[in-house]
């Protein structure tokens, strides 16, 4: 099957999660990171790691350093960055 789909790169696993205090910052993080070409996805905030705003942002764990830098440069306030693989 995969022999016929040479362009299909394996989908990157979004095992990192950024949590936020407020949704503006979650959405702003999504906007900033998408513009910079990062694979990210907004998800309902996992209760175990954040009691705060409704949404959190999944990202590729290996890019953690780069992502933290970008968020800082863009003055996005976040609560924490966690390794939290999807169950």
């Amino acid at each position: 099957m995969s022999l016929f789909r040479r362009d299909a790169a394996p989908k990157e696993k979004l095992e990192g999660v950024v949590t936020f205090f407020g949704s503006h910052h979650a959405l702003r993080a999504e906007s900033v990171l998408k513009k910079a070409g990062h694979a990210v996805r907004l998800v309902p905030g996992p209760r175990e790691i954040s009691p705060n705003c409704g949404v959190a942002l999944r990202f590729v764990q290996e890019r953690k350093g780069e992502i933290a830098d970008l968020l800082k440069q863009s003055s996005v306030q976040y609560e924490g960055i966690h390794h939290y693989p999807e169950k």
Partner: protein
Amino acid sequence: MSVLYLDNAATSWPKPPSVPRAMSGAVRHGGGNPGRSGHTKSIQAGRTVLGARELLAELFHVHDPSHIVFTKNATEALNIVLFGLLRPGDRVLTTSMEHNSVLRPLAALTGAGVVVDFVEAGTDGLVSPDEVAARLGAGTRLAVVTHASNVTGTVNDITAIGAICRARGVRLLVDAAQSAGCIPIDLELLPADYLAFSGHKGLLGPQGTGGLFVRQEADLAPLTRGGTGSLSDREDQPEFLPDRFESGTLNVPGIAGLAAGASYLLKRGVESVAAYDRRLRSAFLAALAGDPRVKVFGGAESIPHTGVVSIRIDGISPSTAGEALEKRFGILTRIGLHCAPRAHRTIGTFPDGTVRLGWGPFTRERDMVKAARAILALAGGK
């Protein structure tokens, strides 16, 4: 008879077609309360609001969009700063050209022990930066200055005034109700601590929208407190921007419309709108041809102006003139005191006021010539 709308200084009309389209889309297909849930509709509404914040941040050269707070109008934005910052014993400096949106909160604060000092503008409506420097006292905490007058359209040298305030350690609140979207505003260069703007005037959004730029939120108390969707386990108000000042559900359809207005302006360019407004002013004045029966306020043509002019016609009260302009020529203007009694005292037109014409990016040059000819006809007793 066709209608010629020349009251854009009160609220702009028409809007770019993208504005009602965006609003209708937000109501028909949007739904969802921004920041309140993790479901698709809530996130979509949140993206609409963020998109608007990002466009306004781009328009005003603000690095971090969270420093743009949405309000229902410029008045609310001004109230947030005046009541959130000033405490009994504080001094505040303002000018004789301010709107009642500044004067009335300050009158209430005077009753609460705040001391208000006024800088008198010239009869052309301009506030002199030197006068501001001379009137700043040792205890002055805040200066509140209008960027452009809603009566004369004169544009103050707000950058010079801001530099003086900054050098003296006084914060500056700029009332940009008449300037936002009409003349360029660059908050990287303008030393303003707060800037209040209207969404439904120069920014071409719908009524019920406005906002406040807050450079530093730390000691500014919110005017309203309530649900923000954030830190919901706590009963105290979040301290971070924009949630600190945005309690309760936002006007998402309005904000979607405002985003469309800002987007239109970014494409057309605010500098180009400002140049267009100046061209229409020149066309209007040229058509009046210096007729001595028509008095034009707002000083020399060389002074920068927005798309606003105040006039009076010899022997005809502003209210009679305004009525005749509508009934006989279909021209809609605004007459009277324009919620700025001190400004009218300053230019010598209190208590009758003036006839104010306010044009916008969709007014045509021939509309201005038509208005001037109608005014001349009234002046000639026709």
